C-alpha cells in the first residue's frame, strides 16, 4: 500500500510545525532581552544590590542606578560580572559569576541589557 503525500498536506504539516515551535510556546519567546535580564538580576543580584523594582534587596553592595551613565563601556560591565576580583583588582565579596559558571556569556549580556535600563 502506498501513500501519496499531497502538496497541501505537506505544506500544512510544515506550516503547522512552524506554528507549534514559534507560536504555541509564545510565552518564552515573547520575553524581551531586558525582561530576561531582569529575571536573572532579581534572582542573582538582588541579594546584595538594590535596584528599582526590588522588594527584598540587600544593602551589602552599591545600589544599581544610572548604570549607562556610570558604565558606558559594555565590556567593563561584562568584566565585572564575569570576574569582579580581576576587574576591580580587589578582594570583593561579589561572586565571580562568569568565571565560576554561575551564568554563561549570553546571560551576562541579558543582565547588562537590563542594567542599562536602570
Amino acid at each position, binding site marked *: 500500500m502506498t501513500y501519496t503525500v499531497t502538496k497541501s498536506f505537506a505544506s500544512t504539516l510544515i506550516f503547522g510545525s512552524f506554528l507549534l515551535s514559534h507560536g504555541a510556546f509564545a510565552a518564552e519567546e515573547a520575553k524581551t532581552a531586558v525582561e530576561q535580564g531582569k529575571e536573572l538580576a532579581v534572582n542573582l543580584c538582588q541579594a546584595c544590590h538594590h535596584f528599582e523594582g526590588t522588594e527584598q534587596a540587600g544593602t551589602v553592595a552599591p545600589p544599581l542606578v544610572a548604570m549607562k551613565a556610570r558604565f558606558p563601556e559594555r565590556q567593563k560591565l561584562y568584566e565585572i560580572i564575569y570576574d569582579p576580583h580581576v576587574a576591580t583588582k580587589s578582594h570583593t*565579596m561579589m*561572586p565571580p559569576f562568569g568565571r565560576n559558571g554561575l551564568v554563561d556569556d549570553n546571560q551576562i549580556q541579558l543582565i547588562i541589557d537590563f542594567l542599562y535600563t536602570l
Partner: protein
Amino acid sequence: MKYILAAIAYLLLPGMGATPAVAEPSPDADLEIYRDYFKKRFPDFTAENYSLGMYNFNEDKRSQWEAIMDFPPYEVVVETGEKLFNTPFKNGKTYAECLQNGGIGIAHTYPRFDAETGKIKTLSMAINECREANGETALNLLKGDLPAMLAYLAETSRGKPIDIEVPDDPRALAAYQDGKRIYFTRRGPRGFACYHCHWEAAGSRIRGNELSPAIGQATNFPAYRSKWGAMGPIQRRYKGCMRNVGAKPLKEGEGGMNNLEYFHRRLSNGLPSNAPNNRF
C-alpha cells in the same frame, strides 16, 4: 668558596626557601586585633549588643524576638534536657560522673583542646563519649536528645564569660590556625568566606537578612531556631549557612568543623554566655 657563598645568598632571598615563614599572630594577639576592628565598626556596642547580633539592625525583627523571649520555646527543651541528663545509663552510671563539675557550669569553656587525642572536643562529643564508655550508642550531634541536653548544660553556664582556651601546645595552636584559615577562606562557587558577611558586611543586609557581627554570635548557641522548630548546636547553624552560600557543608563533629567552632567561639571570649537562646 664564592659559589657556596653565592648559593647561601641566593637561598636567603625572600621566597627561595631558606627564610622562615611569616609568623602568625598568637590567638591573644588575634583577639585584640579583631576586638579593635569591631570596636571601630560599632563603637557603642555593649556585650548585650554583640549578643543581640542581627537584632541590632532591624527594629521590627528585634521586637518580634523580644515578644518570643517572653515565653521562649527553649525553656521546654531545657527541661527535657535536664531530665535526659539526669537519667542514669542502663549500667546505673550517669553523665555527671563523666564531666567536670558534673557538667554544671562548664559549657561556656567548650570546645576544648583534648591533649590525649590532640584534637578539639565539643561538649556534644564529650556527652557521646560518656555514652559509649557506658555501653550506650552515640546520639545524633545535631538533632534530638543531644542538643536538648546541651541546652540544659548551657543554661547552667548562663551569664558566665565565654572562655575558650588555646593552651601552649602546638597541636592546639594548629587546630586554632586551621579554624581561622577555614573562616577566612572562600568556599563554593560563589566564593564566599565567613568573614565576607560577618566582618566587613556586618550590619548590612543580604536579601532579607541583616548580618550579625562575628564577635558575639557564638554566645547564643545552642539556639532554638524557629526555622528548625528545634534546638540545635552551632555546628548545625554552620552547616545551614554553608549551604545557604552554596558551599559544601563540613561534616559535624570532626576535623575542620571542630576547628572552625574552636576559632569562632573564641572570638566571643569574655562575652557572657547567653545560651540557650531563640532565633528565627
